């Protein structure tokens, strides 16, 4: 069945809500409005205002309440409208959700799922367009997921809810309308990265909204008989270092695509691990394709120029291959 990324998340949410009375969805305009990105449209009527809980504009408050509810035996799914707004809740995520288990000597776990939209490309300007996945991926005690495909949009939520610890899911805003065949086996292993396109000459790593760009780049390169492997990192913490290293050991070359800013990026972490583990397997220095180090601008041509694009990825691959 061919469905959208949005519909895949909707199916996952509906399934979770129907299967477990402890699951509820909470966030700004998730209820009556139907969700900013229409992910929960109709759920308010279907599951009622207690379980599809509209909140005031209080990111710190309702994310903290989600943590408390998780401690109290519920399985909350908290939706934050965009990653930029999540900064208002960082205290509760970092200082409570991520720390409680270790700091309490293992007494408390926080089975909380936080979903948020991330990324640029919709001309929403600098305060609605950033990619801060790496900030979250820096923090021990939470799992960070970035579904980039319809199947992962379908499969990751259930896996996240089954995790006894906090999970943050980044849904790239540009992906909601993308469509694909949803195969029967959409279950997702949230320990492992996924090879989306096998190849031999170079490993191209990407996640979230950059994955379709990496795949398009691979298609373009294939037309020039350059066969690259595309690896979807998808689990940003803990990183699946094994899959990353195995791929580089096969191809001996790497390019990492990351919509985050280059300095201190997730791409930097991936590159560091490649260098630590595969230095002598490398035939060329790896390269990164990241966002330019500017606030994401509004004007379309400027926004496009700030982000990783297929042409930049193709150029980086050719540079590493020296072709």
């Amino acid at each position: 069945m061919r469905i959208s990324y949005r519909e895949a998340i909707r199916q996952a949410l509906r399934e979770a809500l129907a299967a477990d009375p402890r699951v509820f969805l909470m966030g700004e305009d998730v209820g009556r409005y139907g969700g900013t990105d229409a992910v929960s449209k109709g759920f308010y009527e279907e599951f009622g205002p207690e379980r599809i809980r509209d909140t005031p504009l209080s990111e710190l408050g309702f994310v903290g309440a989600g943590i408390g509810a998780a401690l109290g035996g519920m399985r909350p799914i908290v939706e934050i409208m965009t990653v930029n707004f999540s900064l208002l809740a960082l205290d509760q995520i970092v200082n409570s959700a991520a720390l409680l288990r270790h700091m309490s000597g293992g007494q408390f776990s926080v089975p909380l799922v936080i979903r948020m939209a991330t990324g640029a490309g919709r001309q929403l300007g600098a305060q609605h367009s950033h990619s801060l996945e790496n900030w979250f991926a820096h923090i021990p005690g939470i799992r960070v997921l970035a579904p980039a495909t319809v199947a992962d949009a379908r499969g990751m939520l259930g896996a996240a809810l089954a995790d006894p610890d906090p999970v943050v899911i980044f849904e790239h805003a540009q992906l909601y309308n993308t469509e694909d065949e949803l195969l029967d086996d959409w279950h997702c292993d949230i320990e492992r990265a996924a090879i989306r396109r096998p190849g031999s000459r170079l490993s191209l790593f990407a996640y979230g909204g950059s994955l379709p760009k990496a795949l398009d780049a691979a298609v373009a390169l294939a037309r020039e008989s350059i066969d690259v492997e595309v690896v979807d990192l998808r689990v940003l913490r803990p990183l699946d270092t094994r899959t990353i290293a195995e791929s580089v050991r096969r191809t001996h070359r790497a390019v990492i695509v990351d919509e985050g800013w280059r300095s201190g990026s997730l791409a930097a972490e991936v590159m560091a691990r490649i260098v630590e583990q595969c230095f002598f397997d490398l035939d060329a220095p790896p390269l990164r394709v990241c966002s330019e180090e500017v606030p994401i601008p509004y004007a379309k041509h400027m926004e496009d120029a700030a982000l990783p694009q297929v042409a930049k990825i193709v150029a980086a691959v050719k540079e590493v291959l020296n072709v």
Partner: protein
Amino acid sequence: MNAKRKAKAAAGEQPFALRLLADMLRIRRMEEKCAELYGTGKIRGFLHLYIGEEACASGAMHALDATDNVVATYREHGHALLRGVPMDAIMAEMFGKAAGCSRGRGGSMHLFDAARRFYGGNAIVGGGLPLAVGLALADRMQDIRRVTACFFGEGAMAEGAFHEGMNLAALWRLPVLFLCENNLYAMGTALARSESQTDLCEKVASYKVPTLKVDGMDVVAVHEATCRAAQQVRNGAGPFFVELQTYRFRAHSMFDPELYRDKAEVEEWKKRGPIHSFSAQLKAAGELTEEGFLELDAAADSEVAAAVAFAEAAAWEPVGDLLKDVTTRGATA
């Protein structure tokens, strides 16, 4: 006094008034020992003493049921103790030992006890309020009739978390008992220097949450007010806010030179010390003799001595366990 007190006294236990006094003494003696051990280097890090404020925890904790939730701050030794966390486990935690109530990972500011529904031990000012709201929400959604008591200081009332938490609790009519220990100083900043509205109950009233202002140096007044408030919360009337007007006799932490308040002010408040004023009151009423007081004091001293011995003898957590419990499944990075 009230029904709760009578019920407890009738159960053939120590007379309730003496329990209140004994509990204040247990906190006082434990913390005096902690200060001493800090001087010898046995306890390190931050150590925030509650000395002077004992009537708040003592009066309020006895207004709660064993099945209620408690969320506290970084000045929570007394709350943990009266919640039933054994003094041994608290002292071992201060020492950083594996037998501590947080396995030695938390220290003074992060005492936890899942079995006693004691949710810490939060060193982010105001951080406990949203957590308390969530705990209460979980209870409501699961049809559990329970109060979540949330302690915080008046300094927290300048935080966004206070306003967001108060609004959510009031909006959703959640069973949270907000207990503000107003000791007049947010670390070194006096209330009037940090709040445009220094009447805390007025501030809360804008959220349509009922309030009570209580003399936090009077353990009986605290107990009666918190019993009343807790009962209302338990009956489903939504959140309640109690301001406990109190005073910290010691420095904010062991690093505080106390340049921000007059010695005379401290001495003036000490005259209203909760332990000596309550024991004087009990003696005047013929409910306590000097011998009786000394017995309670000696009992507290020996509990402290045993706790110190326990902490001294306790083992350190093996370094090999460092990464344990970062996550349940063990994955860290």
